[in-house]
């Protein structure tokens, strides 16, 4: 398949990183699409959890919010929100926490709180929601975002959620026992942290994307792994599944859902 968008490639690359045994804490937007594509292709038994309390959801269309009725109707069970954060997230049962970011630094630290000073922000963003504890309590963290110089910055304005801090063993120094960000999937590349420094390195470049484009849309000095592959392009099955899911979603939310990119919590 050669006829696909960078966003589709991003979603499909993220979907591939999930396995049948994963228990995913899902954010809205790209993470939700990726998790559901995984469920509809190679990982039919993956467990999807939304922070509204729905456990084991299998929506036929993508939700607009983390609390859509569809998520509850298709869930194995729905629990109260305090239980969700205590037994399921803090209890260490989540294998993958999926996060988006307004600002991301090369060590996987995320800002969704403010642009500018906290007390007098230039832009007041929505805040962390579940992210601070998703980042510390999930077994590992996957991040997806479209690349931009405003989004991928050397220094974030606020540490909404902690990735690898200043890198190296900074997580362990803070007493955090989980792995933190292990994967960053953008619309141009797949990145993984360097095993020592924990700084993100490009591991594979999506078909059609270039090193120049990656550099132009990232405000930090991009590092590359020793061997950099091309991301395998979407298969017909992957792309078909994603597009059918989006078509079903658009039909279900007909006329009411022209914009769905934002994360809410």
């Amino acid at each position, binding site marked *: 398949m050669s006829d696909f968008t960078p966003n589709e490639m991003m979603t499909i690359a993220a979907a591939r990183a999930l396995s049948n045994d994963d228990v995913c804490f899902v954010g809205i937007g790209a993470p939700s699409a990726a998790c559901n594509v995984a469920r509809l292709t190679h990982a039919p038994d993956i467990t999807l959890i939304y922070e509204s309390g729905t456990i084991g959801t299998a929506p036929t269309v993508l939700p*607009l919010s*983390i609390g859509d*009725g569809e998520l509850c109707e298709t869930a194995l069970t729905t629990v109260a929100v305090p239980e969700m954060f205590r037994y399921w997230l803090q209890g260490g049962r989540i294998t993958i926490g999926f996060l988006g970011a307004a600002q991301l630094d090369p060590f996987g630290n995320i800002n969704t709180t403010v642009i500018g000073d906290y007390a007098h922000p230039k832009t007041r963003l929505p805040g962390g*929601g*579940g992210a601070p504890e998703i980042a510390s309590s999930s077994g590992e963290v996957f991040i997806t975002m479209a690349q931009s110089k405003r989004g991928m910055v050397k220094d974030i304005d606020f540490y909404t959620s902690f990735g690898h801090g200043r890198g190296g063993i900074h997580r362990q120094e803070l007493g955090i026992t989980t792995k933190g960000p292990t994967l960053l999937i953008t619309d141009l590349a797949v990145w993984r942290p360097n095993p020592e420094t924990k700084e993100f390195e490009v591991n594979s470049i999506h078909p059609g994307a270039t090193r120049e484009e990656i550099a132009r849309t990232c405000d930090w000095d991009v590092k590359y792994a020793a061997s950099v592959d091309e991301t395998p392009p979407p298969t017909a099955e992957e792309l078909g599944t994603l597009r059918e899911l989006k078509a079903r979603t658009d039909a279900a939310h007909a006329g009411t859902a022209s914009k769905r990119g934002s994360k809410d919590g």
Partner: protein
Amino acid sequence: MAKFQSLSEAVAENLKDGDSVAFEGFTHLIPHASAHEAVRQGRRDLTLIRMTPDVVYDQLIGMGMVKKLVFSYAGNPGVGLLRRLRDAVENQWPRPLKVEEHSHAAMANAYEAGAAGLPCAVFRGYKGAGLKDVNPNIRSVTCPFTGEELAAVPAIRPDVAFIHAQKADRKGNVLIEGIVGVQKEAVLAARRSVVTVEEIVESFEGVHPNACILPHWTITSVVHVPGGAHPSYAQGYYPRDNAAYLEWDKIASDRDAFQSWMRENVLEVGPEIFATRVAPLKEAAQ
């Protein structure tokens, strides 16, 4: 003991200027009708509490009724940022807004602690997170067995909690189903509580033995307001009005547009309007 009242009576008796108040709902069952009644009654200087302030909190903030917001995620779900909230925080319009910001885990635990009568909630959280440095209500305790430092936040104890639920029975017991959020905790944590419901039924005979039910003696006031969650939804009654959430983004982008919308759609109408708003949604869902 729950009183059955009109919405204007329930709000007048239970919400005072200067109160801390939670209109809780986690995407589902957001008590819009109650909040609109508070707008009509012109309450001032409120401290609003909610995990996920969205459109309805944008409205209260934009009307200048709010001095402080305690929250963990402020956004228009599936759409974007809250423009009236941003205007208040960034430009102090129509008045400055203090914020006390937490994570979801902290807020959920703080409601739980409030319901449990504890002074604080203890959990594992905020590790490496920046909110610790800007919110003096994030502290810590040390586990006396392992020495682990755990996060602590004060319990949430609102003066009054408003929630919307599917059903009350004749005694005023309340049934909440589906995405139940933190509504039970909000009611149990609050000094007073008002519950609007879609329907009043004879009894809960036949309901699952472990359903989420608030006994009538935990509730101050029960009000029958069909559609009272609109544009949020009530599982089993009507779906979410996604178009209204999208529309809000435009309305809230302009101060004048916002004010005339509030006049036409809140100040000059009453709670009966909610049933008519959900009627086409109910029909479309059939």
